[in-house]
């Protein structure tokens, strides 16, 4: 699996006797960690003390622990490696809860190290004591408390093994102060690749693969839906081979959007609520759906009772509990997407489905006329839209640019109009939809992938939820290109109020500060774009600039994300405007 680090052999580093804090740092390095995001405090001070003259780790001091979590998520999603965070007990740990929940939902590998009060104070309401394991257990893959220094190396090894293998996820190591200051005799770090109660590499059933191949070979209207698990498995190229071999159209969930290049002729766009018309119409007409590393979220399926009524569904997932969770499947293939696709490919026969593909083209025509035209082809004097900005940046930015979004209209518009050109190029908070995710995540992505351009797309609401991270961007000169869609509204909520609450804009208008002045205070280059005529040049200045750059762009507050399948409606009930729906005969 791609998450596996370069270091795989057992490394044995024998030294006489070191503190738990130093053992922790050495074990992190032994697990392949080069960067940690963090924030110090009382209960983790011994670790920060050891870090002071430890040269093998880069520590990025964030401005708020939530920022550290999202930065580590951005780092993990851009690199495929485990993101690492170090914070103090109590408030420090509590500030990480949102990020843990987000990482759990989006299967992002994270190790969070929290300081904890001394073992003998545990349970006594000691200063800054929060029962971190109890709080985080339901939102982590594994949460474990270490009370003795001697247990640290193994706990760290287990943490990285669990976070990165199988279905990845966040892990918490809560380290009591005793374990940090206690001594580790004959320190030695051994990788863990076996835990009796945990089997991350399921045996894939050849019979299921054969059955799937047979269904695919006899299909006349097949469709692939690729999800975040394709990227996680590093199966992007295999996905493309499968699609090309049997001429199968590919849709993606929000989390799977960069699994295939957007300009590939077989890539049909996003599935679900704000997805492509063709994909949602085809879902309910397909005879075989091949769902790869996706989990049939309600934003994807709409009404599950009427979802894909004609289709035999083949579901490939590494997590057995995803099968039949929301949608009944016909063939469940339990395994890693890359391994399954490797086994499946030779059994799939070349085919062509030109009639079927025509459906997508026809739907796209209607979508282009009704939606793309309004979003991308406005005349000079009309206010700007998020879609046209994302589209222009996509056309101007270099190959492999990573788009990191916040949550809301900015997220949907970026997903729809930013064209991914390489794997791991759309980083977004999908399952939890955490406003404030974007800016720190972009920061982490830029730290993890210094060779790629990283663009942050956020709304004026979400930007202000983690705006303090501008301080981190300044301090480390992290070259994030920030695009703030300034519509003076909590746009996404405004859209729902417009459509479903009679335009009663309860608590959604925002009075915003001068974002350019704020950026200036952080010594970050910035400009305001209020006219379409200035947009392209401003984008070029931003992309050419060496270092972070902020564009504060005036956006039409009345613009809405379409197409839209309202929550719980049939997936092919597609609104193209507030009062027209798509019908395909």
């Amino acid at each position, binding site marked *: 699996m791609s998450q596996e680090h370069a270091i795989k052999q057992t490394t044995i580093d024998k030294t006489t006797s070191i503190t738990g804090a130093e053992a922790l740092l050495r074990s992190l390095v032994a697990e392949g960690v080069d960067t940690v995001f963090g924030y110090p405090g009382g209960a983790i001070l011994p670790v920060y003390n050891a870090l002071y003259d430890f040269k093998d780790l880069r520590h990025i001091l964030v401005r708020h622990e939530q920022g550290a979590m999202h930065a580590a998520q951005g780092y993990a999603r851009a690199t495929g490696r485990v993101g690492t965070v170090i914070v103090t007990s109590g408030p420090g740990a509590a500030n990480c809860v949102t990020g843990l929940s987000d990482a759990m939902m989006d299967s992002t590998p994270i190790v969070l190290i929290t300081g904890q009060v001394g073992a003998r104070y545990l349970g006594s309401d000691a200063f800054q004591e929060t029962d971190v394991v109890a709080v985080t257990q339901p939102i982590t893959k594994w949460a474990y408390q270490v009370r003795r220094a001697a247990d640290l190396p193994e706990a760290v090894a287990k943490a990285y093994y669990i976070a990165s293998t199988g279905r990845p996820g966040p892990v918490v190591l809560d380290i009591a102060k005793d374990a940090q200051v206690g001594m580790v005799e004959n320190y030695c770090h051994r990788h863990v690749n076996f835990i009796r109660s*945990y089997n991350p590499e399921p045996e894939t059933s050849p019979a299921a693969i054969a059955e799937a191949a047979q269904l695919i070979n006899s299909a006349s209207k097949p469709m692939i839906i690729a999800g975040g698990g394709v990227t996680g498995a590093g199966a992007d190229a295999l996905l493309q081979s499968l699609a090309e071999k049997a001429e199968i159209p590919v849709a993606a969930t929000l989390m799977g959007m960069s699994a295939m290049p957007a300009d590939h002729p077989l890539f049909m766009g996003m599935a679900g609520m704000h997805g492509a018309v063709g994909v949602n119409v085809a879902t309910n007409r397909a005879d075989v759906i091949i769902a790869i590393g996706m989990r049939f979220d309600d934003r994807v399926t709409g009404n599950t009772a009427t979802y894909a009524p004609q289709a035999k569904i083949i579901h490939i997932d590494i997590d057995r509990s995803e099968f039949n969770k929301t949608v009944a499947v016909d063939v469940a293939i339990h395994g890693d997407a890359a391994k399954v696709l490797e086994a499946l490919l030779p059994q799939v026969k070349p085919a062509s489905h030109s009639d079927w593909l025509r459906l997508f083209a026809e739907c796209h025509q209607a979508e282009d006329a009704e939606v793309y035209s309004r979003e991308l082809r406005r005349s000079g004097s009309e206010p700007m839209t998020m879609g046209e900005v994302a589209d222009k940046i996509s056309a101007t930015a270099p190959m492999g640019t990573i788009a990191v979004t916040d949550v809301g209209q900015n997220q949907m518009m970026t997903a729809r109009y930013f064209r991914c050109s390489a794997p791991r190029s759309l980083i977004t908070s999908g399952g939890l939809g955490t406003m404030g995710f974007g800016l720190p995540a972009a920061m982490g992505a830029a730290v993890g992938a210094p060779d790629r351009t990283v663009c942050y797309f956020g709304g004026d609401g979400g930007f202000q939820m983690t705006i303090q991270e501008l301080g981190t961007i300044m301090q480390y000169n992290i070259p994030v290109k920030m695009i703030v869609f300034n519509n003076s509204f909590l746009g996404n909520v405004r859209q729902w109020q417009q459509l479903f609450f009679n335009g009663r804009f309860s608590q959604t208008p925002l009075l915003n500060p001068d974002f350019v002045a704020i950026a200036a205070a952080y010594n970050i280059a910035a400009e305001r774009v209020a006219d379409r005529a200035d947009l392209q040049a401003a984008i070029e200045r931003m992309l050419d600039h060496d270092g972070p750059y902020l564009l504060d762009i005036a956006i039409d507050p009345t613009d809405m994300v379409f197409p839209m399948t309202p929550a719980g409606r049939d997936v092919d009930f597609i609104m193209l405007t507030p009062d027209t729906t798509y019908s395909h005969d």
Partner: protein
Amino acid sequence: MTESPYKLFTVIIYSENSVGLLNQVSNIFTRRCLNIEDVTASLSSAPGVHKLTITTESDRPTMEKVVGQLEKIVEVIKVGLYTDDDIIYQEIALYKVPTMELLQSHELETIIRSHGARILEMTPEYTIIEKTGHRWEIEALFDCLKRYDIRQFVRSGRVCVTNSPVEHIDLFLEKQRQRQKQSEQ
């Protein structure tokens, strides 16, 4: 008439003995609004492997999802889902009844005999009766003793073993040992 999809299910969870496991397990039930009828924790026949036995009322599709989620807990080794047909099960109950009243009725011996119960302890003040059996049998004895003024009553959770000739946990652990050997190579 269609059978109600709601049934009593017994879930047997084999796990490592780790702090906080019961918490994680019960969370999975509560998230789905499932009421845990009873829980029994004990050692199992496999060395170092713990066993939680939980009964709850639900339908099979829901329970299959619960099992899937339970198996995702890192420390959980294996989970089995059973209905009463698949298992041999017992519960144990203790009844504390005033001795005087029992003796006055002259029925003590009949009650003990007919319910297959036994007397654990008898003092001038109270008598402790023990009954092992199925839930309805324990309830039947309860009903019978009610008129003598039961002072204390307690019923254990279900203890059970499966009636399958194959020990799935042993097979599973053997497979894991093979996997460990491979991982060491």
